[in-house]
C-alpha cells in the first residue's frame, strides 16, 4: 500500500506540492481521458446491438435484453421486470405489445396471459457482446475483400519501397560518382512535393499505364519515398568503409556487398522505414479514393468511407469495421512503440 502511495504522489523533489505538480497530473489524467476515451467508446459501442445504439441516453456497456425460451412459442421471448398493481415485482416474458398494453406471461406458467400497461415494465438486460456486428459485414458485404486489398497494398508497397529505397540509398551512401550531389538534391527536392499538388497529372500517368482501378495504381506511385532514401542513406553512411573494402578484396560482387553486408547492418533503419511505410499505406486515403472507383478494389479506408457516407448509415457495422481497421495499427504500436517514437523524434518525419 505504501508503495502505491509513494508511486502516486511521486514528484519532482521532496519539497511541498507545488501547483505545477497538481497541474501536471491533472493534465496527464485529462490526456488519458481525451486520447483513449473516444477509442474506448468506439470499441464499446461496436459491440452494441442495433437497438442498443439508437438508445438515448446511451448505456456505457453493451447491453442486450435477456430472452427466455417459453413453452409453446417458437422464438425466445424478451424478459421484463414488471411492477404489479399490488406493488410486487415479477419477471415476466412479453408475447407482444399492442399500443400501450403488453401481453405478458410468466415463463414458469405459460398458460396465464396477462395484460399490463407498458409503463410498468422495464427490460431486464445483461452484458452481451454483439459479435454479429463483426461477422455480418464480413459475410454480407465486401469487407473481407477490402481487408485483403488493404493487406495486399500495404505488404506489396512496403516491400517495393524497402527494396528500391535501400538500393538508391546504398548507391548514394557508398559510391563516389559523377552526378551524386545532383541526385541527392533531386531526392531532397522531391521530398517537398506532396501528392496533393500533382493529383491530376499522376492520375493521367496512372491511366496511361493502365493502372486505374487496380491496386497497383495505389501501390506504385508512392513507392519511391524520398523520406526512405534519405533515412536509409543517413544510416548507411555510418557503416565502416573498411568492411566494404574487405569484401571487395574477397571478390564479393557489388550486389552481394549490398545484400550481404550493408542491408543486414541497416536493419534498424529498415525497420523504422518498414513501420512508417506500413502506417502510410494502411492509412492512405486521398490517392486510393481517386484511383479506386470500383467497389471490389476498395481498401478498408475507402470501403469504410463509402459505407459511412450512405444515406442510411448502418452504424453498428461501421463501428465494428472501424475497430477492425484500427486494430492492426494499435497492435503494431503496442509492440513497437519505442521504435516508432524514437524513429520519429530522430528524423522529424511521419
Amino acid at each position: 500500500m505504501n508503495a502505491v502511495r509513494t508511486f502516486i504522489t511521486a514528484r519532482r523533489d521532496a519539497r511541498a506540492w507545488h501547483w505545477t505538480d497538481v497541474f501536471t497530473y491533472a493534465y496527464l489524467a485529462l490526456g488519458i481521458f481525451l486520447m483513449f476515451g473516444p477509442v474506448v467508446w468506439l470499441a464499446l459501442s461496436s459491440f452494441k446491438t442495433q437497438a442498443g445504439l439508437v438508445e438515448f441516453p446511451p448505456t456505457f456497456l453493451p447491453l442486450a435484453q435477456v430472452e427466455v425460451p417459453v413453452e409453446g412459442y417458437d422464438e425466445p421471448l424478451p424478459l421484463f421486470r414488471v411492477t404489479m398493481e399490488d406493488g410486487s415485482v415479477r419477471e415476466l416474458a412479453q408475447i407482444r405489445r399492442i399500443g400501450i398494453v403488453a401481453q405478458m406471461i410468466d415463463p414458469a406458467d405459460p398458460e396465464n396471459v396477462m395484460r399490463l400497461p407498458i409503463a410498468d415494465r422495464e427490460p431486464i438486460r445483461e452484458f452481451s457482446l454483439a459479435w454479429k456486428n463483426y461477422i455480418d459485414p464480413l459475410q454480407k458485404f465486401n469487407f473481407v475483400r477490402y481487408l485483403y486489398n488493404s493487406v495486399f497494398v500495404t505488404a506489396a508497397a512496403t516491400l517495393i519501397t524497402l527494396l528500391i529505397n535501400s538500393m538508391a540509398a546504398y548507391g548514394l551512401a557508398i559510391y563516389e560518382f559523377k552526378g551524386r550531389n545532383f541526385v541527392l538534391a533531386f531526392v531532397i527536392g522531391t521530398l517537398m512535393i506532396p501528392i496533393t499538388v500533382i493529383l491530376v497529372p499522376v492520375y493521367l500517368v496512372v491511366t496511361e499505364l493502365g493502372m486505374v482501378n487496380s491496386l497497383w495504381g495505389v501501390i506504385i506511385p508512392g513507392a519511391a519515398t524520398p523520406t526512405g532514401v534519405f533515412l536509409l542513406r543517413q544510416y548507411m553512411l555510418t557503416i565502416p568503409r573498411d568492411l566494404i573494402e574487405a569484401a571487395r578484396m574477397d571478390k564479393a560482387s557489388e550486389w552481394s556487398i549490398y545484400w550481404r553486408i550493408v542491408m543486414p547492418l541497416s536493419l534498424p533503419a529498415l525497420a523504422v522505414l518498414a513501420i512508417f511505410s506500413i502506417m502510410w499505406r494502411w492509412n492512405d486515403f486521398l490517392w486510393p479514393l481517386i484511383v479506386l472507383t470500383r467497389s471490389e478494389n476498395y481498401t478498408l479506408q475507402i470501403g469504410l468511407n463509402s459505407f459511412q457516407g450512405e444515406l442510411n448509415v448502418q452504424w453498428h457495422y461501421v463501428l465494428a469495421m472501424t475497430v477492425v481497421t484500427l486494430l492492426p495499427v494499435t497492435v503494431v504500436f503496442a509492440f513497437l512503440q519505442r521504435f516508432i517514437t524514437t524513429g520519429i523524434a530522430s528524423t522529424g518525419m511521419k
Partner: protein
Amino acid sequence: MTAATTEATLRDRIGSGALALVAVPLRALFSAIDYPMRLVQRVVGVVGMPYLFLIPNLAFFGTFVVIPLFINFGFSVTGGTQLYLEDRPYVGAEQYGYLLDCENVTDVSTCREDRFWRSIYNTITFVFFQVGFLVIFSLVTALVLNRKIRARGFFRSVFFFPVLLSPVVVALIWKWILLRDGLLNAFITWLGGEKILFFISPTWAMFWAIFVSIWAHMGFYTLILLAGLQAIPPDLYEAAEMDGTKPSRVFWRITLPLLWPNMLVVIVLALIKGVQIFDEVFVLTGGGPGTSTLFIVQYIYETGFASQIQNFGLAAAASVLLGAVLLVLTLAQLYAAQRREAKAA
C-alpha cells in the same frame, strides 16, 4: 534481472521475430538475383554499379513526381474535359483567370468560382486556429512530459497513439461521439442543456474540424518538441535554480529560446500539413454544412475527380496555386531545419 528488463528483452525478441518473417523470403529472392547481377557488373564495371542501384528509384520518382510536375502546368493551361493532353485545347491563362476572377476579393459571392474562394478563406481560418492551438497544446504537453513524472514512456505513447490512426478512423470515432444522439449530446442533456446539432451549424462544424485534427496530430509535434526539450543541457537549469531564478523567468529565458529552433520546425511543418487538410475533415463533415468546411484540397479533388464534369484544367490550376504556397512554406521549413541543425552542431 528485474521484471522490467525481462519484459524489454521479450519485446525485442518479438520485434526481431517479426523482422525475420520478412527477411527470410527476401533473402532467397536476393540470392537468386545475385548471379545475373554479377554478369551485369562484369559488363558495366564497378563504376557503373551506383547508377544501376539508383535506376529503379529514380525511374519511379521521374514517372510519378517529376514528369507530373510539368504535366500539371500543361493541364492548367488547357481546357475541356478530356484527360489526354493531346485532346485538350490550349486556353492560355484562362483557367487561372476563371479562378481568380473576382469583383471584390473580400466578398466571395462576387467571384465567378466562389467555391474556390470559399475554400481558400476556410483554409486560412482553419490553419490560423489549428496551427495556433496545435503548437500551444504540443508545447504544454511536451513541457509536462519533460517533467520528472512516473511512467513517462506510457504517457508519451498515450498522447502519440492517435497519430497512428487513419484519418477515416479518427473521423468516424468523433462523428460517432458528435452525432445528434451521441455521447457528447447525452452529456449535455445530462448537464441540463439542449442537444446541439454540431454538423448543421457552420461554426460548430469548423470548431470540430479544428479540434479533431489537433487531437489526431498533436502527438507528433509533441514528440519533436520533447526531443528538443531533452536536448537542453540540464546544468543551465541547475545554475538557474542556484541563482533562485523564478520558474516563469527560466521558461522565458532558457527553455523557450533554446527550444525555438524546434518550435520553428513544428510551426512550419504544421502549416504545411494544415494547408493540405483533407482526409479527416472530408469524412467528418464532407465539407459541410454547405461549404463551411470546404478546404482547398477538397476543392481540387471535387473539381477534378468527384463532380459530374471532371474539370481537370481547373483542378490543375488550383493545385499549381496551392503548390506555390507550399513552395514558400517549404523554403521556410528548410530555413527552420537549418537553424535546428546549426543548433545541434
